[in-house]
């Protein structure tokens, strides 16, 4: 089952760790908030995605089922 990254914007505090750990799918805007690529994460990159999710200090990054996959 494929998954994609989503951000809980109320929780996100612009620590930017997600972009450091997973630049393949996350870049930062001018204020340090993540701009995530909403497409399904390929299985080859899944370990990186999981690491970014786990490392988020505010638990704002999630993997959810990708409906469009």
């Amino acid at each position, binding site marked *: 089952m494929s998954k994609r990254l989503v951000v*809980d914007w109320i929780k996100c505090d612009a620590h930017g760790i997600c972009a450091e750990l997973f630049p393949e799918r996350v870049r930062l805007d001018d204020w340090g908030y993540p701009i995530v690529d909403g497409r399904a994460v390929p299985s080859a990159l899944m370990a990186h995605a999981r690491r970014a999710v786990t490392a988020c200090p505010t638990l704002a990054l999630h993997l959810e089922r990708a409906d469009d996959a």
Partner: protein
Amino acid sequence: MSQRRPRGAAAPRVPGPEGLPRLLAAPCATHAEHLTRYGALPALRGRSERAGLIAEVEASGLRGRGGGAFPTGRKLRAVADGGRSPVVVANGAEGEPASHKDSMLMRRSPHLVIDGAIVAARAVGAETIHFVVDRADTPARDVLARAMASRAAEMARPEAWRLVELPSRYVAGEESALVNFVNGNEARPVTVPPRPYERGVRGRPTLVQNVETLADIALIARYGATWFGTVGTNDEPGSVLTTVLGAVGRPGVYEFASGSSFETVLGAAGGSLATTGAVLVGGYFGSWLTPADASALALAHGVLRRGGATLGCGVVVALPPESCGVAETTRIARYLSSESAGQCGPCVHGLDAVAGALEALAAGHAAVGTLADLDRWLGDVAGRGACHLPDAAVGFVRSARRVFAADFDHHERHGACVHAQRPPVLPLPDPATRDWSFR
């Protein structure tokens, strides 16, 4: 289509009104007068009558009139199937400074709104109704409160319905913010899912429905889906309450058949596309259209959607040809930025940057590259918030970039145009009495 008869009700059965107006008929001073005009409200006794009402609303094709245009029947069914004693929230708080239609409807036909809430509550099996009004809208609150008091006997318990006065904030009327406030918290949006229809007031499945939608439900319950479709288009039956403002002789709230042309809409208010520089449709959640765009579209959700616009809450503003679209857009963008609930970074910082770039452009002291920055920020901010405020602001400004493209270029290259100092057309809250609280 099922035929329902009021049982045991004193009021006679009367035929549905022909043509328009149907929602904004002359006011009825009392509930008795209201019953004489519209007939009794079906009692919806038993499971099959309740299911029949939901089927009738589904068959009617009614869509939510608060801005989301979600199919009403489907929402009713989702809440009815959610179990756990649902709750109904009647949303009459507009939040949108350019919109007055819900306030007008509640003052003019409070009993239709109440009828709709009662019928919707019976249909989904709810025992509690919250009527929400903007706390600055004391006229609507007073009329609704009196109407509710006169019908207290219709509720099983007096505490089964209550009037909630919502802070006058732009995002407070958003479903999740509204439910959060009813639950005793601040009127700020929360992260969804779960959406209110899944888990809302006190954790129960909650039907949040705009008051105009409820008034339509009240009419469908009495006269049926076929009658409902005698006005409007096949795709989108019914009438649309519309606030018409700007370069028109008689600004105000009008009731139009869904699918009416914008020439009809402006004409009814004493204006015309020929004397209009641009048209704002859908309020500050909406988009600017050129008069040519507008003449090819119509007052209906689907048509506007296909044209890259939205019906929103039914606001139509005619911008006079001599007004500056850049200056008008800038004022609204700053307002929307200042109405951010302050919870989501891209909204807080992105909308502020967008408004700042627009202010520099409107005032004529924008550095070279400001338009490029503006366009990049618009691309970055879209879709990145708990609620749709950032998306709405971006859609609004992007439509301005298209419709007023030449004016933007002029402002960046040569400074402010001669029209930028004209009196503002789009309404904003009075700074002296503005509500800054979410509590």
